[in-house]
């Protein structure tokens, strides 16, 4: 079950670690940008905010002391485990 947990499914402020990222969902430069921001396998993350309109998209995720907005479709490509 835990294997099916993706980043977009976390409750706000619930801490988790990224275990696997399906980079093929992201454009090459987008993947590069996320990794440069520290959003990569092994990173500790949490959802800070969800978007406002339909679909609650995008999502602001906390990584370290930084908040980064990403689309839900990208968050869905990231498997996480709660920590």
């Amino acid at each position, binding site marked *: 079950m835990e294997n099916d947990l993706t980043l977009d499914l976390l409750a706000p402020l619930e801490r988790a670690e990224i275990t696997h990222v399906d980079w093929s969902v992201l454009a090459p430069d987008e993947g590069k940008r996320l990794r440069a921001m*520290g959003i990569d396998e092994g990173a500790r993350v949490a959802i*800070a905010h969800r978007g*406002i309109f339909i679909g609650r*998209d995008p999502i602001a995720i906390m990584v370290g002391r930084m908040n980064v907005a990403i689309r839900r479709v990208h968050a869905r490509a990231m498997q996480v485990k709660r920590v």
Partner: protein
Amino acid sequence: MSRLRTAALVGNPNAGKSALFNALTGARQKIANYPGVTVERKAGRMFLPSGEPVELIDLPGSYSLDPASPDEEVTRQVVQGDFPGEPVPDVLIVVVDAANLEQHLVFAQELIALGRPTVVALNMVDMAERDGLVLDADALSAALGVPVISTVAVRKRGIDALVEAMGDAENQDPSTRHEVAGQTLPERRLAARNMAKGAILTEDSKHRLHAKLDKVLLHPWLGPPILFALLFVIFQAVFAWATPFADALDGGITALIGVVEGAMPDGVVRDFLTEGVLTGVGSVVVFLPQIIILFAFILAMEQSGYMARAAFIMDRLMAYVGLSGRSFIPLLSSFACAIPGIMATRSIADPKDRLTTILVAPLMTCSARLPVYAVIIAAFIPATTVGPGIGLQGLVLFGLYVAGIVGAMAAALVLRRTVAKGGASGFIMEMPRYQMPPLRDMAIGLWQRAWVFLRRAGTIIFIATIALWVLLSFPKAEPGESQVDASIAGHVADGMHVILSPIGFNREISLAIIPAMAAREVAVSALATTYAVEGADEEEEAEGLIPRLQAGWTLPTALAFLAWFVFAPQCISTIAVAKRETNGWKWPVFMLVYLFGAAYVFAGLTYWSAVALGL
């Protein structure tokens, strides 16, 4: 050794580089483009303690030396000495955000590993302290092997120490640098985490103002109304607050015309100065207060960190038309001027996304339309209130802005499905912490933008105004014939009028929109010049433009004129920038055709509807 000549500020986005750049160089700045690419080059002059001048450049914010955008590619090339014609900086000033060390030290390690003379500016230490984080610069310096100076750029704290360290930097011995820099990204990340931990003296994560603010500003129910209320306030302010200043400028110009008329003998030269130069340029310069107010709001939104939240809120809506929240910032900037707006599209990675944003940017109501809207609204919309604090004039102006936004969104929707077809783009954006917009940086930003506007008023608009005056004044009319009818411009307008009369445009409008190709606001000065020239005697000339419009135009014509300006791409500079940013004529020509088409159709629809409604 060779003398120290250049230094570069380099670091992550949101590290406070621009504020540091302002603190180091003051207003001595030159903004241009890197040759061959559409990336802004900001350079300024500063002085070392020895008095030696140094050219300081502010490199585009980057996350790493492995570029993910054209901006980052420029940064990589400059610091590695690969950029043609750009000298390798003698000193690198690596700017890191004290409150986000774990992230910023990743890139800092890459830069330090280049082995160039380097100084680290541990910037925004006050913000870190506000967040409950006290840092040890010496410990960080020991870990990195380069000098680390604590700075608060916006308060000019630590600037002298930084300049001193820059002066000493060329004596650095890179071999003394510890082998801290990781070779791979995961290694650098681990090292950054350890170094950040080692530099933290005390940490107390209770006070995180930005989290509290985000709770409100990104709240599902509160966030959007706050954003829209802010936008509404901006537009009301642009119209209301600027009035006394605009009136004062207007009075000054009228007085100047009086002085010239009193001091000079009758003749062509006097007419040229009063009717051509002063009336024309003056009628545009009076809108400087409005433009400054609009820019002030946009700058405050950018510098406070709210702009990224606005992008976050808008991303979903932008996604409906195939764009992302990233397009929100260029489009919002286009409210001030499409040129910086189109240039700001450089931060959009997806090419189709970027093209679409460029093509719709001219639909956002730029400040050059304000003079046109302002005059027509003042002449034809009564200054009544429709509710507490809501003036009808402001409401109409707001409506015109909304029309531009809706037009842009509709155009994006169509473009994204036709000429700019492509997969959905993503949205990845760092959300910087909130801060009070520093007055000094606001002032410098405002000054640069106001100067650009005045330079435009002084050159393009000046030339267009004079050209129009000449076209209008010659050949001289026979007795009993109207001067406008007799002039060259009158004959050209006769031809245009055949095409434009079905949409309710009169001869004067046909005439005014010719020079308005130079810049939209010229339409106002062109109308002013046209009516001033037409007036046979002094008394009529002294009459203001607004009563002339009220006497000469019907309400449907005025409304059609407003609708025309929502769409018409009347700005040579925008076309030129679009050509540069898309590397060819194909897209600017496309832009011209589709926007003029839309302008004609919507002005027509407005005119015919207004006539049918009996307005």
